[in-house]
């Protein structure tokens, strides 16, 4: 199973993104809304940096004691009549869910939005055993109809505009209405209502599992998680093993950071909590509840310099802040986790072979690090990835390696450096016109493809300074 979206090479994906005017307009306006929303909410709450610090401490503590809290969670889910399965791999997780589907002879599965089930490819696995899987988050539903992967982790259909969505509805569901959001949402609601009523099994992800009470909480604006967990007889929640908090108190802090950082809301319209199966004497809840805790490479990150990447609460603030994502869109990352956090965790989960370009798809401007509500040093992780690609994986281009070796010699030897400072102007002379270079040689070529290069103004500063000192001494 792979989190990779396809086999198109990086350069072509970037080009496709850049040429997609619809997508770029949609992404740029959404980024504007989300960024402003986050900043407004942060200001209104006050002491935002202190809240981020608290969020970071909670995540650090939880990850440092992950074994303890997972055991506590597991015990409490079991105590409340639920079944817990720890899956080491995506295949194990999918197999477990498939077995339940088979045992229940389930025909229809409704799902609430979940990134981890995208990660393990659950939908495809369930379709293999003959179940019809219906996504009930509006964005995910649109993408499912269009057979298009998500391009954003919170608003998965961000790259589509309403005209495109209307077309998808018309083509796949016979929709004949207008492209107003209200009318299309009402249509989706009508369609999905039938699916909720007919579903045998509900599948959810997990925003935060609460260790002290064995609850799984889900954050939505559409309330679909509420339907997914209350109508079907069997409910299965799938969670990444790091998506856990010790108590409701920490959950309250993190959910406030999540909704503010994600969409600029104090709180979402719904926060759903599932606490096990229906016990004797209780009036609602599913007959059967399963919690699948997915490792799928996460435990390999624990204890490494990348551990803080597991602090992520999937708010996408880094994605919304990223100017690179803004221009190329989510699909260019070729991972279900796009943007800065995707560039950090995709190579960790799936190796560098297919994803070695991702750590370089950033100017290291640190807008991501600044936006992250739990203070993951994202741009520093990207530099660490680059170091591994260069020093351990040995995947850097030869020309670059030679250039960097030259750089080290040049910058550690004042004599060589001095010579280069003296030679720069005459050496670039043949390409210089009016102090500018419009079509540079060698490594300057990529630069001057898009912009002019400034030739040295005159003598170097150090030459001028030496002269000035000399003049001072003689005067």
């Amino acid at each position, binding site marked *: 199973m792979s989190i990779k979206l396809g086999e198109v090479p990086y*350069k072509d994906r*970037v*080009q496709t993104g*850049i040429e997609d005017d619809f997508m770029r307009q949609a992404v740029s306006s959404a980024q504007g809304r989300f960024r402003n929303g986050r900043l407004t909410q942060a200001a209104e709450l006050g002491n935002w940096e202190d809240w981020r610090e608290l969020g970071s401490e909670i995540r650090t503590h939880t990850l440092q004691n992950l074994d303890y809290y997972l055991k506590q969670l597991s015990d409490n889910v079991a105590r409340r009549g639920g079944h817990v399965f720890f899956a080491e791999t995506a295949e194990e997780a999918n197999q477990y869910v498939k077995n339940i589907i088979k045992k229940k002879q389930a025909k229809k599965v409704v799902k609430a939005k979940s990134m981890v089930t995208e990660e393990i490819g659950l939908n495809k696995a369930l379709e293999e055993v003959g179940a019809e899987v219906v996504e009930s988050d509006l964005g995910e539903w649109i993408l499912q109809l269009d057979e298009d992967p998500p391009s954003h982790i919170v608003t998965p259909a961000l790259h589509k505009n309403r005209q495109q969505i209307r077309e998808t509805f018309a083509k796949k569901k016979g929709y004949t209405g207008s492209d107003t959001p209200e009318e299309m949402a009402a249509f989706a609601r009508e369609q999905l209502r039938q699916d909720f009523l007919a579903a045998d099994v509900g599948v959810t992800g997990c925003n935060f599992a609460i260790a002290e009470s064995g609850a799984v909480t889900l954050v939505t604006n559409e309330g679909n998680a509420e339907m997914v967990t209350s109508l079907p007889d069997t409910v299965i929640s799938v969670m990444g093993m790091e998506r856990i908090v010790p108590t409701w108190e920490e959950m309250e802090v993190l959910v406030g950071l999540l909704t503010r950082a994600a969409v600029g809301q104090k709180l979402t319209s719904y926060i759903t909590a599932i606490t096990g199966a229906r016990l004797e004497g209780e009036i609602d809840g599913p007959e059967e509840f399963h919690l699948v805790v997915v490792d799928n490479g996460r435990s390999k990150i624990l204890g490494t310099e990348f551990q803080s990447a597991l602090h992520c609460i999937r708010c996408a603030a880094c994605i919304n802040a990223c*100017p*690179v994502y*803004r*221009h*190329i869109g989510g699909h260019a990352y070729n991972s279900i986790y796009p943007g800065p956090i995707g560039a950090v965790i995709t190579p960790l989960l799936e190796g560098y072979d297919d994803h070695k370009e991702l750590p*370089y*798809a*950033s*100017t*290291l*401007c*640190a*807008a991501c690090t*600044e936006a992250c509500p739990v203070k993951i040093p994202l741009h520093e992780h990207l*530099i660490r990835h*680059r*170091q*591994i690609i*260069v*020093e351990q994986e040995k995947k*850097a281009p030869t020309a670059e390696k030679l250039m*960097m*070796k030259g*750089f*080290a010699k*040049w*910058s*550690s*030897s*004042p004599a060589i*450096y001095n010579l*280069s*400072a003296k030679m*720069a102007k005459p050496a670039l002379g043949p390409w210089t016109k009016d102090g*500018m270079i*419009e079509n540079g040689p060698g*490594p300057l070529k*990529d*630069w001057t*493809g*898009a*912009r*002019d*290069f*400034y*030739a*040295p*103004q*005159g*003598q*170097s*500063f*150090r030459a*001028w*300074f*030496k002269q000035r000192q000399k003049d001072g001494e003689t005067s």
Partner: protein
Amino acid sequence: MKVSLFSTCLSDILFADVAKNTLEILERVGCEVDYPMEQTCCGQPAYNSGYLQEAKQSMKQMMKAFKHSEYVVGPSGSCVGMLKEYPKIFADDPEWAEEAKRFAAKCYEITEFLVDVMGVTDVGSTFKGKVTFHSSCHMKRILGVKEQPKTLLRNVKGVELVDLPMEEDCCGFGGTFSVKNPVISQEMVSEKSRHVAETEAEYLVGADMGCLMNIGGRMRREGKNVKVVHITEILNTH
């Protein structure tokens, strides 16, 4: 006050006027300025590209060059930001860890030094024109220097400072990013150039020549007539 000028390799070799202006401003506010000739580059091109061992060689050279300096002041938020990272980079190196800490503690970006150390918010300069300010990413996010350059600019006689739309966004330079990902870099700098043009400013001012040569080079290519100046030029005009 004794200050060592850190010219940055970029200003030393390509933009000597930036280093000259920095030197003259420091002298004007009463500093005694020297220029250690052993200085080279902060190491950022190698460090940010993942070449840690190569980067460390230039970093050691820099620490040697400024070993006896009381203050190290330079005209680039990005390069000074790099110097400030040395303690993290050499934390596990018993030979250099202490020196890296000592070194980083005495490094300042020029506007930061003027406002925070010298307590100067008005350098007494005059510069006529409508200007907009590009705040460079490393200066505001890594170094944490945000208000100082604007405070100084606002106090320059004759300057009309107008906001740059989406000022928080990177210009697309990113060092080797600009040549490793030229297509994305071009889109980013084109958007920045559009925003600069929207302000109708005559001058684009910044505190990092890296960003300025990127935006300026693009605007020249597009035939846009906005002059690109380093903040020290404005602060050193009477």
